[in-house]
Each structure stands twice: as C-alpha cells, then as structure tokens.
C-alpha cells in the first residue's frame, strides 16, 4: 500500500491529505485548479520540506515524525507540467542523467528498449531546445523511468500541449503504463484523461482529499464531490461487437448491454473504454420510441442523491455496472423516482477514451 498522511501550511494555503491506495496501477488525482493536487505531489516527492506527516511507499518510509529522506534518495521519477530538460545536454545525455546516478544492481529499465518504446532513437543527438512540446515530454518521461523509480509522479504532463500532441502523448502514456509494474500518480484537471488512464482515483477540493479508492467506487458514490462540480461521470469497459450499421460501430458492455457509437476502425472483440457524463444521461419510465437518441438501455435505480442546485444525481445499475445520471429535482418528483425502480436510460453522447 501507499500511505499518505500529510499536512502542509503555507502563507495562503493549507493542504491536508490522508489516504492509502494500492501499490499498483495508475492513481488519478483530480480536482479543480488550486485544490492542492500539485502540492500533494510535491510533498510526496520531498519538494516541500516544511510538510509534516507520513509518506510511506510499500515498506519504504520516505517521511514520518522522526525521519525525512532527502529527495535524491527517494526512488521516484517525476514529470512536470512544463518540460524540465537540461538545456546544456543533448537528449541522450538527458536520458542518461538519472540512469548514471542509479546503482547498476537496481537498474530495471534498459536504455534501448525505453528509446524504442517512446520513439526517441532519432532524437538522441538533438538539443532539447529544438524539440516540440510533445517530444520534450516523451524525453522527460523516459528520463524519469530510466532512473528505475519505485513510484512515478506525473504533474499534468499534457496540459502544456495542443490538442493533437495531447492525443499522441496519451497513446504513448498508455503504452508505458501497460508495461510498467510500478505505481503511478497522475495529476490532472481533465476528466477525459482520468477516465482513460486511471485505475484508482483521488478527488481533491480546497486542499483536502474528498474521496479516494478504485475509480469505479469513487465515481459511483452518490455523494461524490464531482457532482457539485457538475463533473460526475461513469466509465464503462466495453468490447467491439460488430460493424453492422452504416457509420456506426456496435459495442457491448461487460454486463452485456449493447451500445452504438460513431464508427471506429477497430477489430471485433478489441477492448475500449467509454466516458459517459452524468449530465448526458436522462431517464424515461417507458421505452421511448421515435427518438433520435441511439443508446437507450434498461436500468435499475439504486440510489438517489440529495438535491444540489436544483438537480439530483441518480445512480443506476446496468447489468452489474454503475451509470450515473443527472436529472432535475422537478423531473425526479414528476417521475416519482425511487430506489429499485426499473427505468430506461437515454445516453445522449459518449466519449471514447481508450
């Protein structure tokens, strides 16, 4: 487990975070800007020496009441929002910087295979100043991993990139996460990145951790802080079923529900991940006909939230998976929505995130 119990008091800002998450997979840290996501990462890295409390990664105690491990001895890698490559070194020298400072015996990543994975071979002789934003971040990621860290910290690595570079780098990140067997903390304010990359989720708000756990548990909490931010969403794991309708692809959720999405070029049975925003899901008591909405699925109401800003969030069960819907309090009363009720969920749009 990764155990964090820390407190940081700055002149204008108070951060308090207590949580533990599994020592595997990608843990997304999500919240509005100024909520303390980056500070949390910096505390874990040891970059905020005035922070108090416990930072424990598996058996390694990096910080507690009596000890404070200096940054160079914390076995971690970090990638910042804006690239931090050394401008006086070329790409290859940058990549070797951390590697050369890691004991031979604990080196677990091979230089050539990392360059191949992130397509860096042709960049090795270049100066970092001549690289594009996406290339710089790829070098930064490889440089961090070549130091064979026990934990990888990513602080909004995509946010300084334009839309197309962002998509490309996300594909590289997925490739990296697939072969990586160390835990990753991924800070982001984009729910799309979180939906696509995260296995666990930590929600932050005003310097506090408001929820943490496996991503599906956190997202499907009826009192999730995401609801107040109008950011509530669900993630559905699906697989490609058929390309039988014009301009559409038919997919099936893990629980067996059939959905249609705009046509994608992927083989039958390949896996994909959908992000569905709660505000894009509406409810009917009877099966609607003559509607332009493609995806209408049977669901069962499992939980109904309190009224917040005139709306309620409804947690639905669709063949064993959670789907969140947001309806106005007025509609909820009109439809007499209650737990255990069978309804039809109309999904206005889905985002393919993986």
């Amino acid at each position, binding site marked *: 487990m990764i155990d964090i119990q820390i407190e940081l008091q700055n002149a204008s800002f108070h951060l308090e975070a207590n949580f533990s998450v599994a020592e595997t997979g990608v843990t997304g840290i999500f919240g509005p800007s100024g909520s303390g996501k980056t500070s949390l990462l910096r505390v874990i890295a040891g970059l905020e020496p005035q922070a108090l409390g416990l930072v424990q990664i598996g058996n390694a105690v990096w910080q507690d009441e009596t000890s404070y491990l200096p940054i*160079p001895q914390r076995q971690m890698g*970090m990638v*910042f929002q804006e690239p*931090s490559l*050394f401008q*006086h070194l070329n790409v290859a020298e940058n990549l070797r910087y951390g590697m050369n400072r890691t004991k031979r015996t604990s080196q677990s990543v091979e230089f050539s295979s990392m360059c191949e994975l992130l397509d860096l071979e042709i960049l090795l002789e270049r*100066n970092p100043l001549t690289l594009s934003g996406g290339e710089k971040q790829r070098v930064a990621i490889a440089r961090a991993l070549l130091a064979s860290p026990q934990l990888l910290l990513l602080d909004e690595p995509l946010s300084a990139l334009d839309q197309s570079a962002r998509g490309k780098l996300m594909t590289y990140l997925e490739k990296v996460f697939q072969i990586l067997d160390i835990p990753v903390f991924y800070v982001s304010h984009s729910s799309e990145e979180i939906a696509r990359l995260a296995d666990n989720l930590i929600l932050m708000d005003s310097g506090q951790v408001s929820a943490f756990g496996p991503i599906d548990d956190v997202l499907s909490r009826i009192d999730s802080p995401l609801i107040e931010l109008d950011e509530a969403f669900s993630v559905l794991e699906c697989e490609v079923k058929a390309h039988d309708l014009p301009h559409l692809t038919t997919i099936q959720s893990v629980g067996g529900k059939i959905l249609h999405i705009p046509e994608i070029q992927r083989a039958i049975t390949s896996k994909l991940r959908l992000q569905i925003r709660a505000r894009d899901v509406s409810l009917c008591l009877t099966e609607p006909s003559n509607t332009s909405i493609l995806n209408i699925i049977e669901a069962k109401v499992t939980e109904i939230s309190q009224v917040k800003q005139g709306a309620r969030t409804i947690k639905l069960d669709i063949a064993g998976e959670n789907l969140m819907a947001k309806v106005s309090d007025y509609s909820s009363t009109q439809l007499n929505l209650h737990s255990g009720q069978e309804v039809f969920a109309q999904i206005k749009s889905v985002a393919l995130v993986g």
Partner: protein
Amino acid sequence: MDIWNRAAAGHKLGISSAMLSNPDFVAFALTIRLSLTTIVILIIIGTPIAWWLSQTKSKWRSVIEALIALPLVLPPTVLGFYMLLTLSSDGFIGASLAALGLPSLAFTFSGLVLGSVLYSLPFVVQPLQNAFSSIEQRSLEAASILGAGPLDRFISVVLPLSKMGYLTAIVLGFAHTMGEFGVVLMIGGNIPGQTQVLSIAIYDHVESLQYGAAHSLSAILLLLSFAVLLMVYSLNKRVQLLGRA
C-alpha cells in the same frame, strides 16, 4: 593644462624611445600576478556568496548585497584608508596578526591581494549571482529527483549553465584589479617588485616627467583592457546567437 601640454610633448618625442625598462617590466609582471591571484581567490569565495544570494530568502540578503556593492560607489581611497587602519599594527587585523606572531599585511603583496579582493568583489559576485538566478528552480528540482545531491547538482547543472557568468566575472574581476590605483596607493605604497603595480608606475613616470615611459605603460594597459573586453562581448554575442547550447 600644463600637464597635458607636457604629455603631448612627450608624445612628440616618440614612444619608441621608451621601451619597457626593467622596473616597468617588474611592475607589469607584478600587476599580472596580483590580478591572477585576486581572481582565483575571488572565484573561490565569490561562488558561494553569489549562490547564497541567488537562493536565499533571508532578510539579510539586501544588507549583504549592499555591502558587496560598496566598492562600486566608494572612492577607492576611502576603502584603502579604512583597510590601512585595520591592517596597521594597532588596527583590528594588524593587531590580531601580531598577536598570532604573523607579519603585518600593510605594504606587502598579501595586503594588496586582500585589498584587491574586497575592491573587485562586486565585479565577480554580481555576474555570478545573475547567472545563478537565471537558472530555473525546476531544473534543479528535476536533477535532485533524478538522484543528484547538492554538490553533484552544482557541478552537473549549475556550472555548465553559468559558463557565460563565470567568463564575465573572471574578465571583469581581472581587468578591474589590473586598473586599481587608490587602494594600492593607500595600503601598498610604492615598493618596486613588491607593491608597485602598473597604475602606480605610470603615476610615478608622470610625476617625474617621463611621459614616454608613461605612454608605453598606459598604451599596454589600454590595449590589454580593450582586447579582453572585446573578447567577452564577442563571445557573449556568439553565445546569444547560438542559444545557450
């Protein structure tokens, strides 16, 4: 007016008649030795001072900065006068040295070095401080996360990124020491081979109406200073054109 006329007359006599005499050569060599010694010491002590100034958030920073910058505005004779007082046998340093059984520094080469170090300190500290301040904190954080300790970070990141700062500091510190006069006059006196540097030798020649000799020495100093500054500025320009690679 009179002195200028006489200087012009000396020029008409021709500089060629006044080749470097032996005492002049000694003064020249002493000046180079003084400047070299001073700049080595200045780089060694200026580096930690400049680093501290560039990183600290201490309220004492402004005080230290002002102290170091004093020689920029103070007449050198003032600095020299106070140094003479502290170095003399009943001054603070002089008395301490005497109590330890060490020789006095006044009117010695070591005394000159001490004076020059203080006098040229801002010319070394300020370029270094500027160079250090322009290094992004992020680069240093990245280096420490990649496993580099403080000294390692300084050698592998700070020094290579501060090359221009060091070049500027070395040249300015060296050139400024070569041209000093007031401090030397106060604490060094005018002992050939020990404390008689170029600027003093020139003054001596003028005093004794040897304009030809004064010309030779002045011309050497002028050309040397110009050449050194030209080198710095053209290097600086080339570095700017190439980026900081």
